């Protein structure tokens, strides 16, 4: 094991373990599709699910592996370019997305057969960009004008462009950037000032949106044809209810692998509500275990920041870790009904999608950063890697 770590898997060993554990959990959660009920209802076609997930797993590990070999320095010059790509990409999906309805968040990359969620590209690029700008202003603290034009406006632009299609991602990205700027020594009073302005803008936006909504409702009221079909509200209530049942029946040790029954009643058991299924099957051990894994990731990222002599890699690693952990929080918070239902996958655990690709890439980049830091610096107080078992 140690040899594999030394020779092929470079960088922070703990983060690698987090990657492996999360991947294993993701496989186990899908394994539950071989459980009794699902077996009956899906005509025994469980191998299909398992193989598909195995494919995803290998894919994500490959992404992590490749990303961790690429030096983080590569991203530095690219960050502004990526921002340049993200904005038209978001605009494109915003304009054409409404016509394509469901596909509004997605774009297909020609030739590769991979669909990308434009907001995933954008949030990744933004973190990269913010880390870069902040690293340029460490000798002399950033002044208000620079802060406004180089950071706040680009962040606001991206967030506003993401907002209509994906509210929760916009908030997530906003909070991550805020925290990153705080770590990157932006003055707290500046940050709070901009937060106030942002909050006010958001409030106005919501008011306007509500106004539009009532007009729309009045319009449909006038037509004789009425829809009594279940509203979105009904649906999310149902999901939350089912999720709570899953959690309540999990207990301390859970029902055991593949014993989930609630999986049959949750609409997206392998992405949006995977956490409920994990709690149902693995109980408190699974529930707290997952949280611990993300906490460990954050702790290791914080260590990188502490040890790093350079600010760009430090901020990049911390920013990406924050992005992952906060997204994980949103996913779990939905499952336990702390916040309303929104479709954030659990990083590296939820099945499929671009999210998996970007989560893997993020992990890879964090590992790459830890790899390039000197061993002494990073493994402070530990044995050198090569000599250990």
């Amino acid at each position, binding site marked *: 094991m140690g040899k594999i770590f030394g020779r092929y898997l470079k960088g922070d060993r703990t983060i690698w373990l987090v990657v492996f554990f999360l991947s294993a959990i993701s496989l186990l959660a899908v394994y539950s599709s071989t459980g009794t009920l699902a077996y009956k209802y899906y005509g025994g076609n469980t191998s299909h699910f398992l193989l598909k997930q195995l494919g995803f797993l290998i894919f994500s590990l490959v992404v992590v592996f490749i990303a961790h070999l690429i030096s983080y320095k590569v991203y530095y010059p690219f960050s502004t370019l990526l921002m340049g790509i993200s904005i038209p990409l978001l605009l494109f999906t915003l304009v054409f997305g409404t016509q394509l309805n469901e596909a509004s968040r997605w774009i297909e990359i020609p030739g590769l057969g991979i669909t990308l969620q434009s907001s995933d590209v954008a949030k990744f690029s933004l973190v990269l960009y913010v880390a870069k700008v902040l690293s340029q202003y460490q000798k002399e603290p950033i002044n208000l004008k620079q802060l406004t034009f180089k950071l706040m406006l680009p962040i606001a632009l991206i967030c506003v462009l993401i907002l209509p299609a994906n509210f929760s991602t916009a908030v997530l990205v906003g909070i991550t950037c805020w925290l990153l700027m705080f770590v990157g020594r932006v003055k707290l009073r500046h940050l709070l000032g901009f937060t106030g302005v942002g909050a006010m803008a958001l409030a106005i936006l919501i008011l306007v949106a509500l106004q539009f909504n009532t007009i729309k409702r009045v319009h449909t009221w006038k037509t004789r044809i009425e829809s009594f079909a279940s509203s979105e509200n009904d649906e999310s209530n149902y999901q939350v209810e089912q999720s709570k049942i899953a959690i309540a*029946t999990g207990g301390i040790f859970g029902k055991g692998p593949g014993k989930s029954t609630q999986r049959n009643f949750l609409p997206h058991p392998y992405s949006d509500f995977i956490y409920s299924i994990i709690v149902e099957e693995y109980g408190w051990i699974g529930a707290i275990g997952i949280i611990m894994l993300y906490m460990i990731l954050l702790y290791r990222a914080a260590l990188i920041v502490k040890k790093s002599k350079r600010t760009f890699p430090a901020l990049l690693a911390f920013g990406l870790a924050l992005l992952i952990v906060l997204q994980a929080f949103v996913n779990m918070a939905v499952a336990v009904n702390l916040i309303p239902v929104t479709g954030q996958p659990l990083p590296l655990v939820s099945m499929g999608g671009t999210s998996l690709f970007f989560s893997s890439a993020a992990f890879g980049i964090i590992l790459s950063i830890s790899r390039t830091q000197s061993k002494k610096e990073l493994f402070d107080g530990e044995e050198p890697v090569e000599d250990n078992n």
Partner: protein
Amino acid sequence: MSLKLQTDRHFVVSGIVVLVLLTIVIKLFYIQVIDSRYKFSAQNNVLRYVTQYPVRGLIYDRNGKLLVSNKVVYDLLVVKRLVKSFDTTEFANLLDISTDQVREAFTSLKKQRGYSSRKAMVLLKQLPVDVCNRFREQLFRYPGFELQPRTVRKYERHIAAHMLGYVGEVDENTINNNSYYQLGDYIGISGLEKTYEKELRGKKGVNIYMVDVHNRIKGPYENGKFDSVAVEGKNLETTIDADLQEYGEKLMVNKIGSIVAIDPKTGEVLAMVTSPSYDPSLLVGRERAQNFMQLQTDSLKPIFNRSIMALYPPGSTFKVVNALIGLQEGIVHPYTQYSCAGGYTVGRGVGCHIHRSPINLTEAIEMSCNTYFCHVFRNIIDNPEYGSVEEGLNVWRKHVESFGYGHKLGIDLPNELGGIVPSTSFYDKYFRKGGWSSLTIISLAIGQGELSATPLQMANLVSTIANRGYYLTPHIVKSIGDSLSIDEKFSQMHRTTIDSVWYNYVIEGMDMAVNCEPGGGGTARIAALPNIRICGKTGTSQNPHGKDHSVFFAFAPKDDPKIAISVYVENAGFGATWAAPIASLMIEKYLTDSISRPYLENYILQANLLNRRGKTK
């Protein structure tokens, strides 16, 4: 770009994020440990329990005539998730309701207990069959809707509403206290429907199905091993004579009061009329709530079951009880004579009407002499053998209670009241200890004052007299299902504390009251029938609510009593004027199944005795 970050702000941020993550742990703890709601709903998810509703038992009269049966209605169920947009006006027209009702139904749908957009929830209740047949043809145009058959009551004859009672949906309280009932189940709420709920309802069955993610049925669970078959409710055969009941209700139209008729030999209730009444079919179907409200707000209180719940002063009918107690205690003899010159003059005095004087006990009953019974009553209470007035009242009270007064008789109907027989402690409180005497409570001599009884108790009293000293607890149900036995308590003989020999003198008096020669002084000669010897006693009871109540009770035939009856007409005047002819017509109807005096029948049918409250006599 080569400067190391010097602050430890990243640890502050990490700390905050860790705290945020901890909120998830707290919420998990809350869901798992504190809020136990969700643990129990898990099973309902995988399995769908489809209830099989049994058919409620039928109710027959004593001659096998059907009183209550069932009819099919439909509840409209909806799985909200599957509903597509539709034309509301067309939908409403199809179901024969207004568009507002449709919107309202959908709004209140979500407020239902256990609401889920994926489960079939009741949208509209109890739609009539013809509407549903029309809707069923169009059902394909309305995905997500289905019709569920339910049975509700159907009344073959529009009589005996109070006695039969009604059926309605179970309330929250019952559901919480009785695991048999679930939301939407029907339950007997009053009358026989309530008393015999367990027998009438039968037993629900359940079919358990496995369902998939979309709540679609995938087949029976464990091949139906845990399914149970619905058991039909048992039929009730009642003691009621439907024709007599119907006739009684007809006679009591436009009058307030009650008729109770009992077969003295068995305690079987032959008729129990409460007026004003209502058509029992008003409390069935979708208009039930509205009709109920209307009945409830009616100033004449048609829902109030006067036969077993109204507490009336028994008036002069009670003189027979005082006569029997006096005879038993030896303070009066059949030949004891008292003279009466227009009233009892001691103390405040009690007036009397003009009749010959002096008279003996039998004549006193025949002529309903107040004076005579004031003497009797005071002699009972002040009998030196007892030592004190208090002890005198105790002796008197013990006798009275043996007639079924002052306590519930135990009829098989809910909400029966027991009436009042005042006790020494009552008078001690009302006046003061030692502050009252036989003179103070002299009203009891003529059935007035603090004494009250239900019409059922009065009918039971006359039934006891007909039996010369015992009664069987009045009851309405003769047999349940195939078994011929009913509750043992209905075949137990309740003996009074009076020796049977004394009854003959009282019966003689009641005979003369009806059947004496013209000018002989009988108070109820209007009730006499040529071929049937009726024994009866009138009463005219004073009350603070206007004109006197008209009271009469009787049994017939004298030698082989087959019917004992009490009639009470509120604020109508003399007992002989209204109550006596009604009782006489009822007796004739029951014993001969014909009416020989159409003039008397017309006289009663045309009388409107409502709105006499507050008017002076």
